[in-house]
């Protein structure tokens, strides 16, 4: 599909900045999030979690809890479906442990009681007997000889013989001959890097309200990025039919990938079925950190060869990702994204998915890509420094373009990397002088973006207004951008459209809001549903005028004869057709269902200035500029918001955020006190430049923007800090103790 109908100009609504439809609700406290729902007769639930990193569950005794006043139900693994296989088995095993607790925080039982305090008290009375097993939480140790095995038989066929059983998936890709390439280089640098796991850090803990009756019919209200997925998974895990379970998404208080996963909804459903009452289950912050999706931690080796004039002759990377106690660490994305910004003749990448005694990793904004960029862009920066080359010029010289064979295989379609680099080069930040103690860092980043199953419906009201139903939870202002696209197509004001995220009973299956797919895929479906509606509107006008449907066109919100030959008729506005639709053929509803596959990839270039206090190792980010290709910005303010949010999360990841495990394998920092996300006083204003190189796969040229923004920051900040401190930082986060230790090691020679 090529951009059609409109060029990049000529839009009336797209590209403007209207207020979001959920704005008033959200500034008045009225918006209902996951924990804000209540039901008559509702019980409250609490989960019992393993305090051990790895332990056999010998016995669960809930007698004391069940004897407590107000306690209505206790569930363990025995209360869930049996005989599951594949991914459903993995999900259930994570939702409720069977015979082994695999990480600190792994759920082993749950209780429902009349009040939240009673539920918490009852949970403390459930006695679990464990037999401790040896544990491992570090990626390199987990794949080393002698490491305790998390689960035998978890590896798939991709894993080469002789690897530790904790290595469960293997990836290899590339092209050309890297050894030949390295031989052609004037300088070859090789280095190793590590990154710790970070959490998505959404402010709203997971929460749900669930009801499941003895008839197998149920309702779930929850904060999720994908309620159709919740429906599918819950039905399987509690053993009911998907269609009997209606899932309604609440407002979602941040997800960033972490709410693509099902954790508590099946537990609430199982408790509800047992008590035959609605059950509310809300995680504490500590539970969120201990038991929900951090990123993978990584260990990476990078080797790059460059000629004296800045041409990269070969690149190679090994990426080991620890993804917790289950398969699924996104090592193939890490490997495939690593060298994507570079047009390379010789490139080779290897990935390992490694299990350990940590919570199952979950997607976090471009899963796997930011770590790769950190390692690769650090080495490129080192090469630029050693060869005295400008980092933007080197990236321009080697930049992937339309037609380049990507490091991960296919040829790039139209892409905007060069445009972001040129815009960065032209930005005043690039040439601004640095103060004493400051360093500048530059990095590029890449993300694929995604399409996915999508269904949208658009219904007219008799007063000429429009109800737009989408199936992708709004995680970044998408109700506004969907409304804008529908308004653009229908030729009516944005205010005449109300966009709703519909429940699972209302629309066909919609994939999760992930992969930066919503503005692309639901946007495309909205445009097509609007066009379907327009076709129906034109048919009504044609019937009224007694002419062919082909002889009617839709312009400025009105049906019009296509030309003088079609006849002389007054234009018929949408509201006029809608008013009489009951008499002219019935309700007018447009819809669209598809799995669009033209999500355009996206590149970004970030520039950052950092100041390092060499006496304390403290870093201050003093200036930040994001340049990213959005294809076409539907709502530029919200696009800027995605750029800024991704940069801020990247700053946290780079400097202070990390999962800290003790020798005992327990998580040491399960509160926001010591899991240090950036606060307002940590950050500067974040400047943004929206580059628009249209995506050929979307009618308006949209590319997803949510994820690419977190790909460059780790590397850009590492380069800035390394340049400011005068020593290369190879491990994230670059916390003050790590920076001081690096400076001390350098001083010791």
């Amino acid at each position: 599909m090529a951009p059609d109908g409109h060029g990049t100009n000529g839009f009336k609504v797209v590209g403007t900045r209207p207020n979001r439809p959920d704005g008033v609700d959200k500034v008045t406290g009225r918006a209902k999030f996951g924990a804000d729902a209540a039901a008559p007769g509702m019980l409250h639930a609490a989960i019992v979690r393993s305090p051990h990193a790895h332990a056999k569950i010998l016995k669960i005794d809930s007698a004391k809890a069940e004897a407590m006043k107000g306690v209505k139900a206790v569930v363990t693994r025995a209360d869930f479906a049996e005989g599951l296989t594949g991914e459903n088995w993995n999900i259930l095993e994570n939702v409720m442990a069977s015979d082994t607790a695999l990480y600190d925080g792994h759920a082993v039982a749950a209780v429902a009681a009349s009040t939240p305090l009673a539920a918490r008290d009852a949970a403390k009375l459930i006695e679990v007997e464990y037999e401790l097993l040896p544990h491992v939480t570090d990626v390199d140790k987990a794949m080393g000889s002698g490491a305790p095995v998390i689960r035998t038989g978890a590896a798939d066929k991709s894993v080469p013989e002789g690897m530790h059983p904790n290595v469960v998936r293997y990836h290899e890709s590339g092209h050309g001959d890297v050894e030949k390439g390295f031989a052609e280089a004037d300088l070859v640098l090789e280095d190793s890097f590590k990154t710790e796991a970070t959490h998505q850090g959404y402010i709203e803990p997971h929460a749900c309200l669930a009801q499941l009756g003895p008839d197998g019919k149920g309702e779930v209200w929850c904060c999720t990025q994908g309620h159709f997925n919740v429906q599918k998974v819950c039905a399987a895990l509690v053993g009911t039919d998907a269609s009997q379970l209606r899932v309604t998404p609440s407002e979602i208080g941040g997800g960033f990938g972490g709410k693509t996963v099902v954790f508590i909804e099946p537990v609430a459903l199982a408790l509800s079925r047992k008590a035959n009452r609605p059950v509310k289950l809300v995680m504490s912050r500590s539970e969120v950190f201990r038991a929900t999706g951090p990123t993978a931690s990584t260990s990476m080796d990078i080797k790059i060869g460059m000629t004296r004039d800045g041409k990269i002759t070969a690149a190679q990377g090994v990426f080991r990702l620890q993804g917790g106690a289950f398969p699924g660490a996104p090592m193939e994305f890490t490997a495939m994204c690593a060298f994507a910004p570079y047009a390379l003749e010789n490139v080779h990448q290897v990935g390992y998915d490694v299990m350990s005694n940590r919570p199952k990793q979950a997607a976090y904004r471009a899963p796997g890509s930011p770590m790769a960029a950190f390692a690769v862009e650090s080495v490129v920066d080192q090469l630029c420094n050693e060869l005295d080359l400008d980092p933007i010029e080197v990236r321009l010289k080697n930049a992937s373009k339309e037609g380049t064979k990507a490091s991960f295989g296919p040829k790039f379609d139209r892409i905007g990397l060069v445009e972001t680099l040129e815009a960065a080069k032209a930005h005043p930040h690039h040439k601004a002088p640095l103060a004493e103690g400051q360093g500048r860092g530059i990095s590029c980043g890449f993300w694929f973006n995604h399409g996915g199953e999508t269904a949208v419906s658009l219904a007219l009201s008799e007063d000429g207004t429009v109800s737009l139903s989408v199936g992708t939870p709004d995680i970044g202002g998408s109700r506004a951008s969907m409304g804008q696209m529908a308004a653009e197509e229908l030729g009516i004001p944005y205010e005449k459209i109300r966009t709703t995220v519909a429940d699972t009973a209302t629309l066909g299956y919609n994939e999760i809001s992930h992969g930066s797919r919503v503005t692309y895929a639901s946007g495309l479906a909205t445009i097509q549903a609007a066009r379907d509606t327009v076709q129906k509107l034109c048919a009504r006008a044609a019937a009224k005028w007694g002419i062919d449907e082909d002889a009617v066109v839709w312009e400025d919100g009105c049906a019009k004869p296509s030309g003088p030959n079609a006849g002389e008729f007054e234009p018929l506005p949408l509201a006029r057709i809608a008013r009489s639709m009951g008499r002219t053929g019935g309700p007018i509803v447009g819809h669209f269902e598809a799995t669009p596959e033209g999500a355009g990839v996206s590149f970004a270039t970030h520039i950052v200035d950092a100041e390092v206090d060499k006496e304390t190792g403290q870093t201050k980010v003093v200036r930040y500029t994001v340049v990213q290709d959005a294809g076409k910005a539907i709502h530029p303010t919200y696009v800027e918001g995605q750029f800024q949010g991704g940069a801020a999360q990247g700053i946290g990841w780079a400097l202070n955020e990390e999962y800290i495990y003790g020798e005992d394998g327990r998580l040491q920092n399960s509160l926001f006190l010591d899991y240090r996300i950036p606060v307002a006083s940590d950050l500067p204003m974040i400047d943004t430049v929206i580059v628009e190189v249209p995506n050929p796969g979307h009618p308006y040229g949209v590319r997803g923007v949510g994820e690419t923004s977190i790909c460059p920051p780790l590397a850009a900040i590492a380069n800035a800090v390394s340049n400011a401190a005068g020593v290369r930082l190879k491990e994230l986060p670059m916390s003050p103790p790590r920076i001081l230790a690096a400076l001390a090691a350098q001083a010791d020679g």
Partner: protein
Amino acid sequence: MQYHTPGSFDDAATIAAKAEGVTRFLAGGTDVLVQLRADMVTPDVLIDIKHIDGVSDIAREDGGWRIGVAVTGAEMTEHPELDKEWPGVVEAMDLIGSTQIQGRATLVGNLCNGSPAADSVPAMIAAGASVSVVGPDGSRTIKVEDVPTGPGRTSLEKGEVVSAVHLPARGDNGGDAYLRFIPRTEMDIAVVGCGVNLRLDGDRVAEARVSLGAVAPTVLLVEEAAQAVIGTTLDAAALEALSAAASAACKPINDKRGTIEFRTHVAGVLAKRAAKIAYDRAGGAK
């Protein structure tokens, strides 16, 4: 959990003396409620001391100050005179947590929580502050440095409750300062804290107290660090000696907030920086 709101410190002490199980006094609650929510400490008896007369007052006393046990950080910061005399103490209190925490947190709560990383404690110790304690057997006054005995522990006996903080008279040619190191700009617990209080005679340091937080099981009063600057004009050599003495006094641990090496090094850095501020405030820069 029982919740009491006594109207006098004697009543509070009596309730505490008779209490069975875990007893906590509730002032600002910014530690007690965190421990309750995190299931770390669920008191059996909670004694809210904010209903006692005078607990929210900041009053003149013997040329110094008497600060009530329910006076919040925000009230200390807003006081028109306190921070002119004891800016280090006020800043130390102000560094604790967010604006919201400042609306509730108190000096005494920070002290009695017994954390070696408590920000206000090194500042109070450097200032020479003391606290009044009411117990079943009457009242006593103890120096702040004698209150903490280890992480989460104090020298207060069962039934004893702190009834006020006393800051001495500032006097002439004096100045104090407190600095801490945290990885972010706000919201963290001190990785290292340092309070310095100086009195000058001309441009020479006549009296000094140097206190370090988060580098040992309790907040330290470091006599060697004070000796390193007494008699000097806080020249480069004195600052180096101060830094070395501060680092030498550290007996820290490796934990999620910092390493032994980091804390030891940064203690010396902060001692120098805080001493310079205190020296300037004492008039040494003029």
